[in-house]
């Protein structure tokens, strides 16, 4: 049997085309609506653009590749923080870089929490950390962690490390807490000069840390703490270990 589209009556051909076109449009609209209802976050372009947004991030967001772009942005953040950027306004681009990641994918909580921790306690810029935390909360208001961080940052702004520590200690026990937070909380405990508590905390960090950098830091800090505990009268305690 010979079957040819070009030999079908024109009306049949056009009718079939119209039917397929109608089904395509219908399924596209239904699929689009279902997708919008399903997505945890609206598309990035529906959120306020952060300052200093790169063209790459904008194009990726428009081109439906925000998640991968946020991953690349996150690697950029880590590279920037690991680099020698003290002269660059003491890692001044940390906020724009983390804001870009947050804008691209508010669901990348690990990066957001890490950015807030780094800004608030590593670079001692609680105002910038609070901006990032508030932007994160605005995008993902169901996430209670951001509220906790904002509270901790409020203490930090008034140099009340104990108050900040009180909030962050709960956060740090979460299984998905970034290593950055582990180190931040460890430093805050050291600032309290409570060597017994510091010993317990850093020993726990050794079992929990994922990054080699954190493990090395825990080993170094524990040596220092044990030296303090062994000495009959401890000399002036380190207020903060190098990160």
């Amino acid at each position, binding site marked *: 049997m010979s079957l*040819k589209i070009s030999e079908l009556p024109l009306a049949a051909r056009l009718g079939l085309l119209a039917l397929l076109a109608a089904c395509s449009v219908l399924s596209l609209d239904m699929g689009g609506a279902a997708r919008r*209802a399903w997505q945890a976050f609206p598309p990035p372009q529906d959120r306020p653009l952060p300052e200093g947004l790169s063209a790459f991030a904008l194009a990726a967001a*428009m081109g439906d590749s925000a998640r991968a772009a946020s991953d690349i942005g996150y690697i950029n953040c880590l590279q920037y923080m690991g680099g020698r950027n003290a002269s660059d306004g003491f890692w001044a681009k940390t906020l724009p870089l983390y804001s870009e990641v947050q804008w691209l994918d508010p669901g990348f909580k690990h990066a957001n929490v890490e950015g807030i921790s780094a800004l608030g306690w590593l670079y001692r810029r609680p105002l910038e950390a609070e901006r990032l935390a508030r932007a994160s909360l605005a995008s993902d208001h169901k996430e209670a962690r951001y509220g906790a961080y904002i509270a901790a940052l409020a203490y930090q702004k008034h140099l009340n490390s104990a108050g900040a520590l009180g909030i962050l200690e709960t956060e740090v026990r979460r299984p998905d807490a970034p290593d950055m937070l582990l180190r931040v909380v460890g430093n805050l405990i050291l600032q309290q000069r409570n060597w017994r508590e510091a010993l317990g905390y850093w020993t726990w960090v050794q079992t929990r840390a994922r990054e080699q950098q954190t493990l090395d830091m825990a080993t170094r800090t524990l040596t220092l703490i044990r030296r303090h505990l062994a000495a009959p009268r401890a000399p002036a305690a380190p207020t903060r270990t190098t990160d």
Partner: protein
Amino acid sequence: MAETLVIAFNVFRQMLRNRILIVLTLCGLVMVGVVGFLGDLGQDAQLRLARDFGLMTLEAVGFFTVLLCHVVLLFEESELKTYNILLVKPVERWQVLLGRTLGAILLMLMNQAGMLVMLWLLGLWRGLPIVDSDLVVAACYLAAGGALFSAVTAFFSVLASSVPAAAMFATFTFALGHFTGNLLEWTMQLDNPVLIWAVKLLYWITPNFSLFNIKENLDQVGSSLQFSGVFLWPLVYGLCYGALILFLSLWRYELKDF
């Protein structure tokens, strides 16, 4: 249909032996390997990065596989005239074009499956659950998008006057199909009704590859069974739009002079 499958398997076999496609397959496997280590750059977020980059690589290799497969076949058809023999065999032209489209899809599926297995092995080796059911679901939807792209490329391979033009149009449409996802929302910000309808028309006409992009919401896949529409409608859309564009291609192909 038997002849269509014979043609599809021949395309698949022929492409498997084509050096360009072999290099692409190997590149895909190497890229997956690199992705496993690229995740390490993300330190704590290693798993997320490995999964995201893995899926991204899967999509990219799928795109290039389909495109190159059609380009090679179109080159053979228009420049080397291999199809002058095939088209005189007792097969319909629609079977030839459909076979070509299916052959490209088969090759893409093989590449993607190979990469997925590689990713899984990498995860086993590194002790990371990179490949789980969510990632497999997302990969399946990428493959569905790739199948639609194969139909789109077949359309341009019939319509365009030269091989580079067909490749260029197909690539441009693929890129555009990722950008049109939010066009409907933009129409809400427009006042001019003509412009609104023009944008809507563009949204409906352009193949929408965003619909198949489950990987953007990978974390939600497992807990989204109640959102069946998210998974059902893309498939319906792919079938309808794919059939529509193939119908147009076949119609034109039947009337084409060789």
